[in-house]
């Protein structure tokens, strides 16, 4: 039985959902780009800045200790949330992009050499393509994409064939696609990659807000995610790395926090996780992200996942009933992301006319140009993406607004 009462219960936590845009009540369906923030996060960050702020890890004074405990407490919350074996396996980064760059530069520079390959998929976000291209270019290695089937499911046959053919050093896959919504069978992919001798990285940016994550059962070497898509602040994310892997990796960025001692004869580096956290981190962001995780867990990830399944089913049936609309990405396992095209119409026109009706969606290639090319979608797609507070009524309003836009453009 679907819990349709969830939005009723939590929408009051999000002040922004009360506002109007162009004189119409806001319908926010751009959650895959960034989710809105609950009061617990807004107030928590404010409270920290107003009453508790100091720099962490160094100070002997009360505030510094309080801030350090709060920030390290957030690290423990992240570790618990994704079932990491150790809290020091969590490295704070500025986001998923930063986390992937860390692995590409630190692990990649030591493990990739001429003739090696990194296996990705055609549904990756640019953030899980370009960092690999950059390190591969410098090492004479190559990035190989795995095929995606017409319905948006990863081509597992091609994946296993590529593992065999290329013997990649790294397999980097997205957990849930930001454009198609497809949830990939990452446990299976990681197990096969490990058997083939490859390290694994899973991009969980679109998984973290939508369902529970267990990195030990996934079996990934690296798992990355960002806070702002999961009701937390922007400018913060994390890398989870298997402890033995992280310990063997050289630091990437140098500076304060990441050292044990510095001299001109030679510098020694700090232990995990600080070895990878040069400079003062986003302290208030880390603490606020911990509050965002608390907020999600108080609802329950299963409850959120179940609610979003109802939304996806509703959106699929409502939108596919509109004449001329085609949904792009109909995998059986999806997060709350629905991409579509309207026959003969440009997604930019549709997005603009939806905005005029108070509906916030995203149009274009969604930072997945290779996927758009693969599907031959020159003007990209229009993407509606959902969160725990999204209602079926909002999807209905967006559908009517889409029909009106299509009438205007025809």
């Amino acid at each position: 039985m679907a819990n349709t009462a969830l939005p009723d219960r939590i929408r009051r936590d999000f002040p922004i959902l009360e506002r109007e845009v162009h004189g119409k009540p806001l319908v926010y369906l751009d959650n895959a780009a960034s989710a809105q923030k609950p009061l617990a996060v807004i107030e928590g960050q404010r409270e920290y800045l107003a009453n508790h702020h100091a720099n962490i890890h160094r100070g002997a004074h009360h505030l510094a200790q309080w801030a350090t405990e709060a920030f390290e407490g957030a690290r423990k919350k992240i570790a618990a949330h994704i079932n990491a074996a150790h809290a020091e396996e969590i490295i704070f980064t500025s986001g998923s992009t930063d986390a992937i760059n860390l692995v590409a530069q630190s692990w990649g520079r030591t493990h990739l050499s001429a003739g090696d390959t990194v296996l990705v998929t055609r549904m990756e976000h640019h953030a899980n393509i370009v960092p690999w291209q950059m390190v591969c270019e410098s090492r004479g290695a190559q990035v190989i994409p795995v095929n995606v089937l017409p319905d948006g499911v990863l081509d597992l046959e091609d994946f296993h064939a590529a593992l065999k053919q290329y013997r990649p050093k790294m397999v980097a896959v997205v957990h849930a696609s930001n454009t198609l919504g497809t949830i990939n069978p990452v446990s299976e992919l990681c197990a096969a990659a490990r058997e083939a001798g490859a390290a694994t990285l899973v991009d969980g940016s679109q998984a973290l807000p939508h369902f529970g994550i267990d990195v030990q059962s996934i079996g990934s070497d690296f798992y990355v995610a960002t806070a702002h898509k999961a009701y937390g602040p922007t400018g913060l994310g994390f890398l989870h790395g298997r402890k033995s892997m992280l310990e063997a990796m050289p630091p990437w960025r140098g500076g304060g926090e990441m050292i044990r001692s510095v001299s001109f004869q030679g510098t020694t580096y700090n232990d995990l996780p600080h070895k990878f956290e040069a400079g003062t981190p986003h302290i208030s962001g880390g603490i606020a992200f911990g509050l965002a995780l608390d907020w999600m867990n108080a609802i329950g990830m299963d409850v959120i996942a179940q609610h979003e399944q109802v939304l996806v089913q509703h959106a699929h049936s409502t939108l596919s009933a509109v004449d001329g609309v085609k949904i792009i990405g109909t995998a059986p396992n999806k997060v709350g992301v629905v991409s579509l095209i309207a026959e003969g119409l440009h997604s930019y026109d549709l997005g603009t006319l939806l905005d005029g009706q108070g509906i916030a969606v995203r149009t274009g290639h969604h930072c997945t140009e290779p996927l758009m090319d693969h599907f031959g979608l020159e003007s990209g797609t229009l993407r509606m993406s959902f969160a725990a507070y999204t209602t079926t009524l909002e999807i209905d309003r967006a559908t009517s607004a889409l029909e009106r836009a299509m009438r205007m453009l025809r």
Partner: protein
Amino acid sequence: MSAALIQSRQAEIIEEFALFDDWMDKYEHLIELGKDIPAINVARKTEEHLIKGCQSKVWLAADEADDGTVLFTADSDAIITKGLVGLMVRVLSGAQARAIAEADLHFLDTIGLHQHLSPTRSNGLASMVQQMRLYAAALAARRA
């Protein structure tokens, strides 16, 4: 005289759009205008005339007339962008090169469509206006 021409054309568009106070009506009108744009010759819709926005494409061709005025023709693959491109062509095409290069373009602001000129909008319009000005400035310099 050309600067005055550009001013009067902007005033005309502002007056025309003043009829619409509803956001959607304004866009309905913009879509209609897009259909009447002095379209670029299909044979000229080539890479050379393409201004690639992130989301929509714009094609622009400029031709110099004997009297030193510039004639613009354009097109876009998105209808709303096409309407905006059409407005820009309507304001600038047929004016003297120097006047185009130095034109004070304020009409999009006044009619509340300025957000489409923002580079972050990525529809190619901002780049098109820049191209129009650059072409006109180069031409004016050549004729000076």
